């Protein structure tokens, strides 16, 4: 069986959906040459009507996609940098997201916003290293953060087929992950259904995106002392509350590791909902970026503002002690 990388999985999902549905098209900066690699080969295969290189006009091409979607197309926009979503924030959050309700159900806006290389790319500094998935979840835009190649394929596929706007963050730190999988083994992964990557009895660790791999590594490290369950919601919004409830019902303890800023981030929501709804035997703990983090350039500083394995291990120890 062939080894499939996360990046290649995104590429394959795009190719498969372009082939399956003539309404799908891809647009973005440098997508023809495929600077991000995610669109490699697509221009050659599908031609200029399906793969559009855009000028550096994030606002206009985002709403261009909205207009095309309102007319029956299924655009996939590639954004080279997470912060480019900020430039198009009005166009996504205030236009695309709101069309369905505001028109009383007349409109649908099936646009996918794909960000390959979200979070820190190591050495790209303050304006290129954000991981703003909580912002879109707060606004109510469906938001996926796949951890593995097969989920990257499956969630991107579902995003494209979904009738609502969906943001897909592909963390830079996950893009190189590989898995031993057959093309036949790939398929859509529903939005809003989490995945238990590792079963355990003592504590549920919620992790998403590249942090799933860190959580698994820490779980393995600590395996002698504690039985850790790793729950990956896969989509930030909608969130698989039932899946989490089932996991926490088994373990009774909760740690959340999350690459968003602490304040009002994903981990805040998970801990808040757990506090309201679940019976925990000890207070939950979050491991996140600091409040309002700006990623400094120098490598050691860059790393210092991201959640790491040592912090996660300490958090697990903490919830067990209490």
């Amino acid at each position, binding site marked *: 069986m062939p080894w499939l990388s996360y990046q290649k999985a995104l590429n394959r999902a795009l190719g498969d959906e372009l082939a399956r549905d003539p309404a799908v098209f891809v647009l973005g900066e440098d997508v023809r040459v495929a600077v991000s690699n995610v669109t490699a080969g697509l221009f050659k295969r599908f031609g200029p*009507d399906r793969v559009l290189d*855009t*000028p550096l*006009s994030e*606002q*206009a*091409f*985002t*709403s*261009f*996609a*909205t*207009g*095309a*979607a*309102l*007319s*029956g*197309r299924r*655009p996939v926009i590639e954004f080279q940098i997470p912060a480019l979503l900020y430039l198009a924030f*009005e*166009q996504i959050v*205030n*236009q695309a997201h709101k*069309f*369905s*309700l*505001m*028109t*009383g*159900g*007349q*409109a*649908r*806006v*099936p646009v996918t916003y794909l960000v390959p290389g979200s979070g820190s790319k190591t050495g790209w500094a303050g304006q290129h290293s954000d991981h703003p998935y909580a912002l879109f979840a707060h606004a*109510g835009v469906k938001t996926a953060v796949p951890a593995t190649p097969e989920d990257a394929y499956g969630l991107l596929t579902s995003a494209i087929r*979904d*009738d*609502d706007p969906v943001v897909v963050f592909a963390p830079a730190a996950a893009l190189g992950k590989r898995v031993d999988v057959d093309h036949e083994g790939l398929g859509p992964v529903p939005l*809003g259904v989490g995945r238990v990557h590792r079963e355990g009895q003592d504590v549920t660790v919620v992790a998403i995106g590249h942090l799933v791999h860190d959580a698994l590594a820490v779980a393995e490290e600590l395996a002698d002392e504690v039985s850790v369950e790793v729950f990956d919601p896969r989509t930030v919004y*909608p969130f698989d509350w039932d899946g989490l409830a089932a996991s926490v019902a088994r373990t009774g303890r909760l740690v959340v590791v999350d690459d968003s800023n602490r304040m009002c981030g994903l981990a805040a929501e998970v801990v808040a909902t757990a506090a309201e709804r679940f019976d925990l035997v000890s207070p939950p703990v979050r491991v996140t970026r600091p409040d309002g983090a700006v990623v400094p350039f120098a490598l050691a500083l860059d790393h210092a503002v991201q959640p790491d394995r040592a912090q996660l291990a300490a958090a697990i120890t903490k919830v067990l002690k209490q």
Partner: protein
Amino acid sequence: MALLTAVAHAPGSDVGLYRTVRLIRRFEERAVELVRSGDIVGGIHPYTGQEAIAAGVCAALRVDDVITSTHRGHGHVLAKGADPGRTLAELAGRATGLNRGRGGSMHAADFALGILGANAIVGANGAIAAGAAWAARQEGGDRVAVSFFGDGAVNQGVLLEALNLAALWRLPVLFVCENNGYATTLTVSDAVAGTITGRGAAFGIPSATVDGMDPRAVLDAAREAVDRARAGGGPSLVECLTYRFDAHHTWEHKARVRYRADDEVRSGRERDPVTIQGDRLSDEDRERVDAEVEYTVDAAVAFALGSPHPDPVGALDHLYATGMRARPGGGG
């Protein structure tokens, strides 16, 4: 009463154009009354004075062409053929409204008629129209898209970006700028460096200024632009010089904001599109249309005010096109 509506006129005929400007005028006047009476909540941006633009441009369009509109959108929506009753019901937040009462004045839409919605964010709709135009071209056929916007919108980055996209990709879009001299209280000369047509021209877009008080002049310019777009000649920009007869928004009726001299308002209202177009009709035709419009608007008001309010239980219906339900906010 059937007699009154029996005679059909091409929208671009003199009678047709008059009917449209007159309908918009009377619709707006009644809507303002309904704001005063509290039947329309949140107020409106009256289109009064600018009717020739919506009428002229939409008369150049087919049913399958699309338009994107603005905060001051009733005129466009009506001119593109929306039912006045359902439009007014939308303004009054009724379940029978175009948007089932979910959108109101600033979001009125009728997708079946190619009305992709009024839009509350100035300048936002140009790029949406560009995308719709591209999609139309992909489908084959020769449908066009129109983006209406005000003079204030030409300072919005997203609109300028959209002009570039449209020109670059030769999209069948018509950019219609309604230059009424003001963005709320700010004059064009205090807001726009250079000229509006100069901005279109800078992107290589054929750009012309027309008398926006004359429905025929607008129609002529729109026809030329639409023909070019259908033939694959790309986008055009038409700047329509006009004057807003009423307030920027009905809150002005109560507030003490002063930014237009009485003299200016008086002279601005002298050239009235309803009069200009009405003068082209025989007295008989004009009276007949006036009566018909009165009947239509009366019926619209009756329909709107007689319609049920939507049930708050469904407040978040349609939040997601997929039917996904959001978690409620209440303590539950």
